[in-house]
């Protein structure tokens, strides 16, 4: 009896997958837009005297990218996105520090699609969440005191790879895309083995993008 039940369930699953594959679909597109980024700082020491968490100010930047999405079912898909983006932030002490870290970022985002049109299959509202891996291309810090400004290349002082989480939502209507997302780094981006226990710096970004794309 148990074997028969198991076989029935297995058969149902296979049938379900066959139906799924009929609904599977690829979607691709281009996205570009603005981001606001800041850095999150935390200090930690054994005595507790240095412990502090603070964040810098947001600084505007831009982002451009492409994505490909595979719909496993009508509602569930998997999106792979590649972006060229600038992260960093502003910190003002006696001197103003404007950090610009340029990354190529790859995100893998399971996506939930809600179809908003019965006529156009590709018109959807979507929610996604997943992870990203970003590879740093270039890092620069602009240090200014009043109008005196100094540029410092910091590529070698920052870790080459950043990992983090990403959450987004958006709408695709008649191939026009409006997308908003949030990313939070999980890696301490400071490449200083001596002080990595004392100081922890993470990336955080909000993106708003527009684009064009749709089903293939």
């Amino acid at each position, binding site marked *: 009896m148990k074997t028969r039940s198991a076989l029935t369930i297995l058969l149902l699953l296979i049938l379900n997958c066959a139906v799924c594959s009929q609904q599977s679909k690829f979607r691709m597109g281009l996205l570009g837009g603005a981001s606001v980024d800041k850095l999150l700082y935390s200090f930690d020491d054994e005595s507790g005297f240095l412990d502090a968490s603070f964040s810098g100010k947001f600084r505007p930047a831009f982002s451009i990218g492409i994505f490909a999405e595979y719909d496993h079912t009508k509602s569930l898909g998997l999106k792979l996105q590649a972006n060229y983006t600038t992260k960093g932030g502003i910190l003002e002490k006696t001197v103003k*520090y404007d950090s610009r870290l340029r990354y190529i970022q790859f995100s893998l985002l399971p996506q939930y699609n809600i179809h908003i049109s019965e006529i156009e299959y590709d018109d959807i509202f979507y929610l996604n969440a997943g992870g990203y891996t970003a590879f740093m291309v270039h890092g620069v810090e602009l240090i200014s005191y009043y*109008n005196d400004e100094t540029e410092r290349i*910091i590529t070698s002082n920052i870790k080459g790879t950043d990992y983090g989480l990403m959450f987004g939502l958006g709408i695709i209507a008649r191939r026009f895309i409006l997308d908003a997302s949030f990313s939070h780094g999980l890696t301490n981006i400071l490449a200083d083995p001596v002080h990595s226990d004392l100081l922890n710096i993470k990336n955080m970004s909000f993106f708003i993008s527009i684009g064009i794309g749709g089903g293939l």
Partner: protein
Amino acid sequence: MKTMKSILAIAGLMLYLPLVLNPECPGNYGPVSPLSGSWNFTFSYGNGKVFANSVVQIGLNGSICGKIKVSDTGETFYVTGEAGYEYDSDFSGRFSDACGNLGYVTSEFKGTLSEMLGAGYGSGSFSFTQKNPGYKGTWQAKRN
């Protein structure tokens, strides 16, 4: 000729006045230490016990000075040094009785202070065994 003189005078004023009236013109300030600001230093003995906690100032010219109070004995000293205009400053300073003093020759307050992405941090060692054989250890610091 008169018109030419007037034009030259006005042009001269147009060049001169912004430089005088605008205090943010470049060139009005010399170099500034990227490490400048108020720092928290925590000094520890070799066994990890706190020797002193102190707020230390680094001036726009990179000069270091701060008053420290030994947690155990309540004695107060100053630590002084020169971080200069570097982003990563390996400095060697001393303990002294006041800011601006040369300090005790046999004392040592040295280490590295760094600035990265606006954050200031550092670590090093200290020794003031002339006052007390036990006054030595390490320190960590962060800019507030």
